[in-house]
């Protein structure tokens, strides 16, 4: 059975909330499609990295897994339960580090964890959970209102770990953490996975997921644009080369883009940066010259995993996308 299963899930946010807004007529321009016909599944025991730039729809997807947000259409199942109708059953077996949360200012760290243990009807030792995430007893007895972002993040993780959940859903778990904290976070993810838990976590930084993930999905503009194992991505990296060409004159970019084996073409000052398979390199140079430009010089690099991720996620229009969070 799949731990997470999405089938044709779409979420549109209509901007019609509030008393005043309901008087105003809402047009299509007010609606934002945060997630568009999304289907994928995560197997039990898998560590799945959910990647994409800010505003790609990652958090909206996670919010639908937790019933914070309801899909406009499609079905979401988590741990065999309908995510909407049986959300409590889902959350009883799930540990969550949500996005855009806040801690209770007036409760201490320990009280937060105790509340989580109590809600999950678990019998964990709060101190043990707190020490696992690196909050020492002094800090745990302070009110969480005075916590830094990193400490809040650790506290929320301790709450997520309560009750040894079958599924961990972590939304940008490393945000607010320093590099050492991010490494501890990865260690915890690995420990939980070794215990047999399914881990689903999102990030906009590839480096944080590649060390621990079995498989990644890359989202952009509400769609899953790639879904592969880390090995699969590495194979693609090995096949992929980056060709930097110094060009005299104007190259016909469209002709280059149309070639087999070319995945990206970008201009860089006078030069071109072309992502392509190894065997396409000579075709690229031919095409540039056939278009009337002269190739002054060229060099090839092999692409890193990061390059591939950026190639997927950094399109021309990604900068002005609205950030969708809910």
């Amino acid at each position, binding site marked *: 059975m799949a731990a997470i299963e999405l089938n044709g899930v779409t979420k549109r946010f209509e901007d019609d909330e509030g008393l005043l807004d309901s008087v105003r007529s809402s047009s299509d321009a007010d609606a934002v499609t945060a997630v568009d016909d999304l289907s994928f599944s995560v197997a039990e025991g898998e560590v799945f990295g959910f990647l994409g730039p800010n505003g790609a729809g990652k958090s909206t997807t996670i919010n639908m897994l937790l019933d*914070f947000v309801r899909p406009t259409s499609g079905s979401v199942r988590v741990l065999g339960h309908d995510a909407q109708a049986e959300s409590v059953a889902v959350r009883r077996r799930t540990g969550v580090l949500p996005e855009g*949360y806040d801690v*209770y200012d007036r409760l201490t760290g320990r009280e937060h964890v105790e509340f989580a243990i109590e809600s999950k009807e678990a019998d964990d030792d709060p101190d043990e959970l707190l020490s696992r995430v690196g909050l020492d007893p002094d800090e745990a007895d302070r009110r969480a209102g005075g916590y830094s972002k990193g400490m809040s993040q650790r506290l929320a993780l301790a709450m997520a770990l309560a009750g040894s959940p079958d599924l961990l859903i972590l939304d940008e778990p490393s945000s607010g953490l320093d590099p050492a904290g991010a490494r501890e976070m990865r260690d915890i993810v690995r420990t939980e996975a070794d215990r047999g838990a399914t881990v689903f976590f999102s990030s906009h930084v590839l480096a944080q997921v590649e060390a621990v993930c079995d498989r990644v999905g890359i989202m952009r503009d509400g769609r899953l644009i790639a879904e592969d194992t880390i090995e699969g991505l590495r194979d693609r990296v090995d096949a992929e080369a980056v060709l930097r060409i110094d060009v005299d004159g104007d190259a016909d970019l469209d002709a280059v883009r149309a070639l087999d084996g070319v995945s990206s073409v970008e201009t860089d000052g006078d030069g071109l940066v072309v992502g392509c398979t190894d065997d396409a390199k000579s075709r690229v140079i031919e095409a540039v010259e056939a278009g009337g430009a002269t190739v002054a010089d060229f060099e090839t690099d092999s692409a890193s995993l990061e390059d591939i991720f950026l190639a997927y996620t950094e399109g021309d229009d990604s900068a002005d996308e609205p950030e969708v969070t809910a």
Partner: protein
Amino acid sequence: MTLESVARKDFRDALRSRWLLGLTLFFALLIGGSAALFYGVLLSGAGANSETLFGLSTAPGGLFNFSYAGMLGFVLALIALVTAHGSLIDERESGTIKLLLSLPNSRRDVVFGKLVGRTLVVIISMLVGFVLALFAMLFTGGQVMFASYAGQVALSGLLATAFVSIGIWLSATSTSQRQALFGTVGLYFIFAVLWSTVATGVPRLVNWVVEQLGLTALTAPQVVQMRLFIKYLNPLRAYETLVAELYGPAVAARLFKAGLGERLAIQSTFQESLPFYFSGPFILAILLAWIVVPPLLGYRAFKKTDL
């Protein structure tokens, strides 16, 4: 039981914020203090009983028309609304609700857990005031009519709960803290001020329409009945008349604060037989409905909301 843990957490938060302490001091001064002042200074010694201040009788010496229950109702309603109006929307705006709903708490547990937690805050602080007032009466030699007094405390608790319920509804349906705040002010204005205007205005409007249609106008007793019925749909007024009934006959309690003309028009009819919709149990049912219905409506809205 996660409803219980939500309620406990909410109550602890009120403790930490000193809101509970502040309210307790407030009610200690208001109820306990006024009782101490009244029985200790204004009306010391023999002949003083709990009805003198808390009953439906008018103020000391009968000089002006003052109802302690009416005053207390206004204060309780405001305090309860203020206590409850932020319960859900504050957590939504800060994001703590995501922590709360990441755990296996259902939205129902959250709405009704909040209802329980906030109700306890208002009722406990109010009880302290009533207990202090009781001591004040006992120490000054005032005679306490225990049954009426207990009934009044219970009704005050129900009124406070009703307005916490209304505040929860407001909080569950608001989309911003500002909206909830304006809603609080608006609702309070409606219950405390506007309602009586509507209760007076509706029968007049009906009569005007009837006249325009050339039909027989409502009789004077019918006008009074219609006004009173609308009036007692207001939880504040239902509370006041139920308290009055603790200290006297039902008919007098229903006509409490009614003008002389109205009394003349309706008193004999009521004395013969009080219609069931003006009976104590019916008015109590109205007050209870204000406790039950708003949180259900609030839950229905909150259940559907994207956080």
